[in-house]
C-alpha cells in the first residue's frame, strides 16, 4: 500500500508519522535525536512502521467477530512483547559490542576478568530489564539508552566491586558501546521479530475463541502487506542533514501549522514549545501559515530550560510538572537566561522557599515568554492549539490557560495527547499532497 511519511527532526527527539492515501494516520514513531539525525530519522521511521504494522494487525484481527472482545488485549500484548524482543536484540548487540570494546589491548592485563564481569552484568540486566515488559508495568522511558543505561551503571558498579575491577573501565566501555549500538539499525527483520513476539503472546494469553493458527495467519498476512514509502517529507532543525532532495524538505513552521490544523481544523493560533524553539504561528482556515514569530538568539523559555532546571534540582524532567502543581504560591523567576534562572532557583531554595512554589514560578516564566512571542505574532483571536514536548507538562498548561484567559479572554485551547507529533503530521500531509500533484 502507498504510504506517506513525515519526519520531524527536533533538537531533542525525532518523530515520524506514517499516513495512508486517505490521510489517516497509520503509525507514529519517536526516538531521541542523539546528535545523529540520519540514525534518528531511520529509527523514528522504523518505529512508525512498527506502529503501522500493529495498526494493520489490529485492523486484520478486528475482522474476526469471535475475537472482538479481546483484540485490544491481544494487540497490547503483541506490542509489549515486540518491544521486549526488540529490546533483547539490542541488549545482545550492546553486550557483544561491549565485549569487543573490552578486548581492546588497553585492557590486556584484566581482559579475562572484564569478559566475566560483562557477562555477569548483562545477565543481571536481562533479568531485571525483562521485568519492565511484563503486563501492567510502566516504563519511565521507551528509549533503549535510558532503560539500559541506569541498570548498567547500577549492576556494573556492583560487579566491579565484587571482582575488584576498576569501575571507570566498565563505564568507558559502556559509553563507547552504547553510541555504536544506538546508531545501528536492528539486524533482524521486523516480521521475524513480530512473529516471535506473537508466539510469546499466544503462550501468555491462554485460551482464545479461535485457533492459534488462524491468528498467526491473519497476523502474518497483515505483516506481509508491503508498506511502500511513496513520499517522505522532512522538517525540523535537522532537516538539511537528511539525504532528501530540497523539495522534500519543509520548514517546521509550516508543518506545525498544518499539523495543528489537521488535529483541530478551527485552529487559528498555534503555540509550539520545543527543545530550543518557541514558535507562535497564525494559520488561516486551511492551515496555511500567515504569520510567525520565534524566540531569537536565546533558547531560555524553551524545553531545554526545563531540562536544565530539572538537572539543577536533581529530579527527572517529567517530575517538574507534577511537583509544580502542588505549589501554594508562585515565586517570581526571570526567564531571560537559563543559567541565571538556575542561580535564582538556588538562591530561593536557600531562602527557604518550597520546591513546588519555585517550580510554579519557573513554569510561569516560560509561559510568559511564550505569551510574548504569541503577541508578537499577532495574538490570539480564535481557537488556540498548544503543541510540542512542553504541552505534556501539566503545570505549563495550567499557566498557559491562565495567561491566555487574562490576555485574550475565553478562547478554546486544544492540546492533543499526540501533540508531540504535530510537526511530523503536517510533514506527512505535505508528503501526501506532493504525491497527489
Amino acid at each position, binding site marked *: 500500500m502507498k504510504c506517506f511519511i513525515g519526519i520531524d527532526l527536533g533538537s531533542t527527539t525525532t518523530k515520524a508519522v506514517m499516513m495512508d492515501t486517505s490521510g489517516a494516520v497509520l503509525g507514529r514513531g519517536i526516538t531521541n535525536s542523539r546528535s545523529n539525525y540520519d540514525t534518528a530519522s531511520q529509527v523514528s521511521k522504523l518505529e512508525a512502521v512498527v506502529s503501522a504494522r500493529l495498526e494493520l494487525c489490529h485492523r486484520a484481527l478486528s475482522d474476526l467477530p469471535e475475537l472482538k472482545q479481546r483484540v485490544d488485549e491481544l494487540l497490547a500484548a503483541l506490542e509489549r512483547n515486540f518491544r521486549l524482543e526488540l529490546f533483547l536484540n539490542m541488549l545482545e548487540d550492546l553486550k557483544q559490542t561491549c565485549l569487543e570494546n573490552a578486548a581492546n589491548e588497553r585492557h590486556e592485563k584484566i581482559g579475562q576478568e572484564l569478559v566475566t564481569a560483562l557477562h555477569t552484568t548483562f545477565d543481571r540486566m536481562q533479568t531485571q530489564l525483562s521485568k519492565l515488559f511484563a503486563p501492567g508495568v510502566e516504563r519511565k522511558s521507551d528509549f533503549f539508552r535510558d532503560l539500559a543505561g541506569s541498570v548498567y551503571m547500577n549492576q556494573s558498579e556492583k560487579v566491579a566491586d565484587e571482582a575488584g575491577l576498576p569501575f571507570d573501565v566498565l563505564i568507558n566501555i559502556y559509553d563507547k558501546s552504547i553510541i555504536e549500538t544506538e546508531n545501528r539499525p536492528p539486524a533482524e527483520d521486523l516480521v521475524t521479530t513480530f512473529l516471535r513476539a506473537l508466539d510469546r503472546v499466544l503462550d501468555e494469553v491462554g485460551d482464545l475463541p479461535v485457533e492459534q493458527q488462524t491468528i498467526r495467519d491473519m497476523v502474518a498476512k497483515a505483516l506481509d502487506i508491503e508498506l511502500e514509502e511513496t513520499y517522505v517529507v522532512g522538517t525540523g532543525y535537522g532537516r538539511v542533514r537528511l539525504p532528501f532532495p530540497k523539495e522534500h524538505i519543509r520548514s517546521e513552521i509550516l508543518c506545525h501549522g498544518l499539523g495543528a490544523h489537521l488535529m483541530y481544523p478551527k485552529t487559528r493560533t498555534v503555540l509550539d514549545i520545543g527543545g530550543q524553539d518557541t514558535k507562535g504561528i497564525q494559520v488561516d482556515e486551511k492551515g496555511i501559515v500567515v504569520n510567525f514569530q520565534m524566540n531569537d*538568539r536565546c533558547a531560555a523559555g524553551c524545553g531545554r530550560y526545563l531540562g536544565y532546571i530539572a538537572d539543577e534540582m536533581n529530579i527527572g524532567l517529567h517530575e517538574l510538572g507534577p511537583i509544580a502543581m502542588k505549589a501554594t504560591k508562585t515565586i517570581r523567576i526571570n526567564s531571560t537566561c537559563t543559567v541565571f534562572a538556575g542561580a535564582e532557583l538556588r538562591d530561593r531554595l536557600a531562602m527557604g522557599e518550597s520546591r513546588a512554589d519555585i517550580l510554579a514560578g519557573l513554569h510561569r516564566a516560560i509561559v510568559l515568554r511564550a505569551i510574548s512571542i504569541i503577541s508578537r505574532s499577532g495574538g490570539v483571536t480564535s481557537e488556540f492549539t498548544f503543541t510540542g514536548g512542553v504541552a505534556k507538562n501539566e503545570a505549563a498548561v495550567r499557566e498557559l490557560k491562565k495567561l491566555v484567559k487574562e490576555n485574550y479572554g475565553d478562547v478554546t485551547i486544544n492540546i492533543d495527547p499526540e501533540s508531540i507529533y504535530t510537526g511530523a503530521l503536517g510533514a506527512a500531509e505535505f508528503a501526501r499532497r506532493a504525491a497527489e500533484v
Partner: protein
Amino acid sequence: MNTNSQTEVIKDSSMLLQKTMIAENYDELTNTEETGKKISATFVPGNLNELVMCFDMLNNLPEINAINNGMRKKSGAMVMQAEKQGHSEDVCTYVKADIGSMSRGNLAPNGKPMPSPDLLLLSYTGCFTFMKWFELLRHEYGCETAMLHVPYEGDGVVTQNMRDYVVKQLKEVVIPALEKVSGVKFDIDRLRENLRNSARAEDDFVWVLESAKNKPSPIDAYFGGVYYIGPIFTAFRGTDKAVEYYQLLRKEIEQRITEGKGPITPEGDMQDERYRLVVEGPPNWTNFREFWKMFYEDGAVVVASTYTKVGGVYDLGFRHDPDNPIETLADYCLGCYTNRNLSQRVDMLENYVNDYQADGLLINSIKSCNSFSAGQLLMMQEVEKRTGKPGAFIETDLVDPRYFSAANVKNRLESYFQMIEQKRQGIRSAA
C-alpha cells in the same frame, strides 16, 4: 549556478571599478603625511562630501571602515577590544569596531595606519549614537569638532523653519570650521560644480534602483544594492569618478535587462526569480556572503530596500540642486532615511511592496541599533495590513559576529519563503 563557495567571486566591471576607487581613496587617506591633505571624519547619513571637497579635504567615514572590517572578518576582535575598554555589550557595534580599531593600530584595508582626523564633522541625522560616537572620538583625538544639528522629521514634514535652521548652521558653523581647518577659502561655485556632478550620478543611481521593477529584476536592491550605493553614499559623491561609475553601472544593468538576466551574485547570475522581497534594516556585514546566499540559493531577490536610502532618499525625487547650493545640502540632510519618522517609513515600505510587486516585507532587525530597530515590528504589522502581503522578522547584527546565528536565520528565511509559496498555492487552488 556554481555552488562551490571556494571558487572565485564573480564581479561585474562596475564592481571592479568601485574596488579600485575605494583602494585609491584609502591610499589617499593613508598618505596625507606626504600630500599634506586634511581629513574630515563624518557619517554616511548627512554626508556633506560636495562641501568637504571644496576645501581640498578628504572624507573619512568611520561607519564604512567598520563595514570594511566586518566584511574582512576583523570586526569581531575590535568589538571585543572596545568591550575590554569598558563599552557595554549593547553599544552600537559600528562604534565599538571603530574604537577597538584605534587601539589596534587603526589600520586601513591597505595595511597602512589611518591618520587622525583634522575635523570631526558631526552631521546629526536621526541617530543619537552619532553624537556619542564623536564625543568619544573628540576625547581621543582632541581635534576640531563641528556639529550640524539636523532636526528630526517627527511630524513627517520639513518646514521652512527647519530648513533655515540647518542653512544657518551650515553658514555659521560648518563652513567656517572647514575653512579654519583647511586654510582654504570657501568657493560657492566649486560647490555648485560638485553638486552638478552629484545630481548627474543620482539620476543614473535612481534609474538603477528602479530597474528592479522589471521581472525578473536585473538587480538585487539590498545585497547588490550595498555595492550600488557605495560611491554615492561615501567619499565620491560629487566627483567625476562617481558619474563615470553610475554610467557604467547603468549600462551593465541595461544589458542585463536586454538579456533577461537576473541579478549578479558572488556565484554568477541568479537564475530563477522565485520571491521578490522588500527589506527593511541594514544587512549583517560579518557574514554578508553567507547571508546573501540564503536568499539567492532559494531564488529570493530583494527588489527594494530602505537601507539603500540611509545616505539619501533619491528615488522619492530629491536631487542635489546646484542652483540652491546651501539649501540643497540642508534638504539632503533633513530627508535621509534615518531622519524620517515611523509613519514615513511605513509609507515608503508600503509603496515599495506595491510599486515593485513584491511578495512581502522582510525586516532584518539589528541587535545593536536602536535607531533602526525601535518600532520595526509595528511597522511590519502595519505594512502587512495595508498590503495584504506577509511579513517576516529576523534578527542579526551589523559587525558583531557573535550575533549572527546562521542556523536560526536560515530557518526563519526558509519558513518565510515556503510560507509565501504556500500562500500562492492556496490562492491558486482557491481561484
